[in-house]
């Protein structure tokens, strides 16, 4: 871990201003950032601790949805009665991730910003364009069982590893931010995580210093909610493939996949095929996929995991 300076921000715009400086990063729960700093994958020169900014409430919006403060812990969000009642895909996704201890500490904004779990990203002896732009990608041609099958590039084949965001994607959430100039915006979650392209070092569309203040959920959409997470062990593992889905009584619905791409993978034209069954949806959703030999199984697995969800929705 490199030495760094530290400040505890008092207001949101001040935090944004401080974090807009080169080498600065926000610190919330720290469950991902601090681990990466210890192995020098992350080497910020300055940390802006946002824990005193409030942002820790879940409020109802005028539109009938929920506004989730950026610092609401994963535990509190998953346990919220309104979330459990109206957005249970979100609760299911959150409790499928990490461990109780981590969820107690991890924040809503931090969860959206967690970095990939590609093992080559984690090993500073290995080339990684995401960690060190221009150094190459050791994962391409290497061990890639966990890595992405679609939306990846010839610069990076990592995935976004989270669960919570996959559920937020089917709920059409918005990410609310404030920047150093005090400008606020609401970014559709569909646009929040970038595809890697030529710049895998940029995980999201956030500008330097732009601070997430909340995530808003539109009003509830009913239906049955599912989060099917497939992994090699029963708990405490990243998804090989996950499926977040809301299925309506008529068999229509929404579906997003986790563990397959740089972002929660939802293709609206594909989910329109839900009444035709899982294979129709995934054939469309994963059109143009570029799996490796190690992770080609994720394509049939995505189909089968979705089939499991559809079967449960009919039960």
């Amino acid at each position: 871990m490199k030495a760094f300076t530290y400040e505890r921000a008092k207001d949101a715009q001040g935090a944004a201003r401080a974090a807009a400086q080169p080498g600065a990063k926000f610190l919330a729960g720290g469950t991902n950032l601090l681990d990466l700093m210890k192995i020098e994958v992350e080497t910020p020169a300055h940390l802006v601790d946002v824990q005193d900014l409030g942002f820790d409430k879940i409020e109802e919006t005028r539109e009938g949805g929920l506004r989730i403060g950026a610092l609401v812990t994963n535990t509190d969000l998953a346990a919220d009665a309104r979330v459990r009642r109206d957005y249970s895909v979100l609760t299911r996704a959150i409790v499928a991730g990490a461990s109780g201890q981590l969820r107690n500490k991890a924040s809503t904004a931090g969860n959206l910003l967690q970095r990939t779990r590609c093992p080559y990203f984690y090993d500073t002896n290995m080339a990684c364009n995401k960690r060190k732009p221009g150094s190459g990608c050791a994962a391409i041609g290497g061990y890639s069982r966990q890595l992405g099958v679609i939306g990846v590039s010839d610069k990076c084949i990592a995935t976004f590893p989270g669960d919570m965001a996959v559920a937020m994607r089917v709920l059409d959430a918005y990410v609310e931010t404030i920047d150093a100039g005090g400008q606020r915006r609401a970014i559709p979650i569909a646009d929040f995580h970038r595809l890697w392209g030529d710049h895998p070092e940029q995980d999201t569309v956030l500008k330097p210093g732009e601070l997430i203040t909340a995530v808003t959920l539109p009003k509830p959409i009913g239906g049955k909610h599912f989060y099917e997470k497939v992994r090699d062990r029963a708990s405490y593992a990243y998804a090989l493939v996950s499926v977040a889905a809301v299925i309506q009584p008529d068999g229509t619905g929404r579906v997003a996949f986790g563990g397959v791409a740089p972002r929660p993978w939802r293709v609206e034209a594909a989910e329109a095929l839900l009444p035709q069954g899982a294979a129709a949806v995934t054939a469309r959703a994963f059109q143009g996929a570029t799996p490796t030999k190690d992770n080609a199984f994720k394509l049939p697995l995505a189909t089968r995991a979705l089939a499991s969800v559809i079967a449960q929705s009919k039960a």
Partner: protein
Amino acid sequence: MKFDTPAGQNPIDRMQVVGRAHDRLDGPVKTTGTAPYAYEHHADVPNAAYGYLVPAAIAKGRIASIDTRAAKAAPGVIAIVTAADAGPLGKGDKNTVKLLAGPEVDHYHQAVAVVVAETFEQARAAAGLVRVDYARGAAQFDLDDALKTAPLKGGSSDEGSAAPPVDRVGKFEEAFAAAPVKLDARYTTPDHSHAMMEPFASIASWNGDQLTLWTSNQMVNWGHEDLAKTLNMPKEKIRFMSPYVGGGFGGKLFLRTDAVMAALGAKAAGRPVKLALSRPVMANNATHRPATRQRIRIGAQKDGTITAIAHESGSGDQPNGSPETAVNQTKLLYAGANRMISMRLAVLNLPEGNAMRAPGEAPGMMALEVAMDEMAEKLGLDPIAFRIKNDTQVDPEKPERRFSQRQLARCLTEGAERFGWSRRNAKPAQVRDGKWLVGMGVASAFRNHMNMASAARVRLSQNGVVTVETDMTDIGTGSYTIIAQTAGEMMGVPAEAVVVKLGSSAYPVSAGSGGQWGAANATAGVYAACVKLREQIAQRLGYNSADVTFQGGKVSSGNRSADLAKAAQGGELVGEDKIEFNKLDKSYQISTFGAHFVEVGVDAYTGATRLRRMLAVCAAGRIINPKSARSQVIGAMTMGVGSALMEELAVDKRFGLFVNHDLASYEVPVHADIPHQDVVFLDEADDKANPMKAKGVGELGLCGVGAAIANAIYNATGVRVRDYPITLDKHLEQLPAVA
């Protein structure tokens, strides 16, 4: 004490303290955090500086240059040691590869330097500033490729499992060709990491030319000797201590780099140094269980009688390394007139392969016991009946050698009854519970028992306290407790009244902890020392030692009786002895047996396997403490779940490293993976083993578990996967269509 004839009746047979389920005597200090582990001897070393390792960034080649200027100038840095300034170092007998690289690099994450600083954070930060330039060398990282030209090679795990390069009985090829029913199948097992909870850690403190080392090591004497060899100094000038070990699984059998680098760092810094390996460095810096490529051929008559059996295994290791002895159990487990085993060893430049819990048998049984399941199906026999049909009470290669005790058949039949084996549908892919495809599997369990010399000293103090001293280690197994039980039984006091001091080179050399030899041999050594002490007590009291009894804190002979404490009133009495073995384990084959039963569910959609029930029935001699023995077996069964379903060090064949070198990516089972586990110990006492009539059990619990799970998965799905771990991708597309 020489143990060369079967044990007669002795005080242990009373089973008043031994054989009882006893809570761990070290439980309270461990659960309150007051048991000092290797990194935590603050009380002994209040002023330690912190060492942090710089690991090699390449797998094979040379260090072209090291620039330590920036690191030396970093805040708090006291010293930096590389091979260039360490002075000439030897190599431990038990180490295949040297523990400090330079100028050659032998494997990824081999130690290149240690940075010593005032604080842990300063040492870690400065370690990141050491610049090392490498020249990569030619290397081989691909086991399958290397095995194409690998020579035959015999070897020993040093843990009870050994085999020559080729071993033949009868005419295998002819018998196999003539057999009406045959199986010829290939199996693979991957590299495994020990992944113990406590990392490799040491504190080194010099006083002039005397070194004191607190470390985490299973074998105090091996580590002590190899540290002396490595540092080129007399063993007598080193105190080597390992009183608590937070798991080892064979990874801590040997001297490792933490001990050497702490010692070198402390010498350079002129003050004590503590050093622990960080988790991401452990998998490549330390040893691992090598991957295997196995081929098994079995030929049988139509009634199931095996007429030909062959087991070949290939593995890889560093130059001058040794093979994974995966064929060993096939020499002993089943009858069959025509037999062949062989091993090949490829040279690889991956990290050093070496012992991990049940080396040889663990991966060997994962293949053999699947082959037996496959063969039973070909024969149309129940897999239990097929095994019992080929059971043997003699060494199949040397029929004049009988097994000292062999209750394999009883383990299988009793397990079958308890588990409800009769409810298993022999036809695979027939049982469904909701989305789960349900199957049951069985495997024999087999692991050799090893006799190892073991010494102890037992004191009776003037106030009547019994204290045992031996360099035996407790690696989470319960050594403190069973040694107290043994001394308690011998001296007629409760286990709680015995003080047990372990894990120091100041104490007599024990068997140590490895190869499931620890419990039986270390307690036998304590038994021998207690016999000596009993003689002295009888003598001091003027009793005839032949008919003296120790019971309830009293010593009695005929109608005379005295308090135990009285015997030492005139001065402390000390009994010291060593149990030694010579020929009984040559004339008898001493092994442990069992049967593993599992029920699994395989998700019909995703192919993910989850355990539903597990049972182990073990026949392993006298069980000294059923509670800690059960803990050993359920822990081993859990490890078996890992090897069956998820554990695999992923090899990058381009760069020569295990890529998934942390506990997020090298997955071991979590609580949610483990269902209800039952363990049954058959009532047994093996008088050919030692005076305790006990054998090992900690590794038996692992041997066969993986195969039982593989067989259950096959029974559930009808898809046979022969490549471990059986992750869902390996059978997904052969499962019934769902969409």
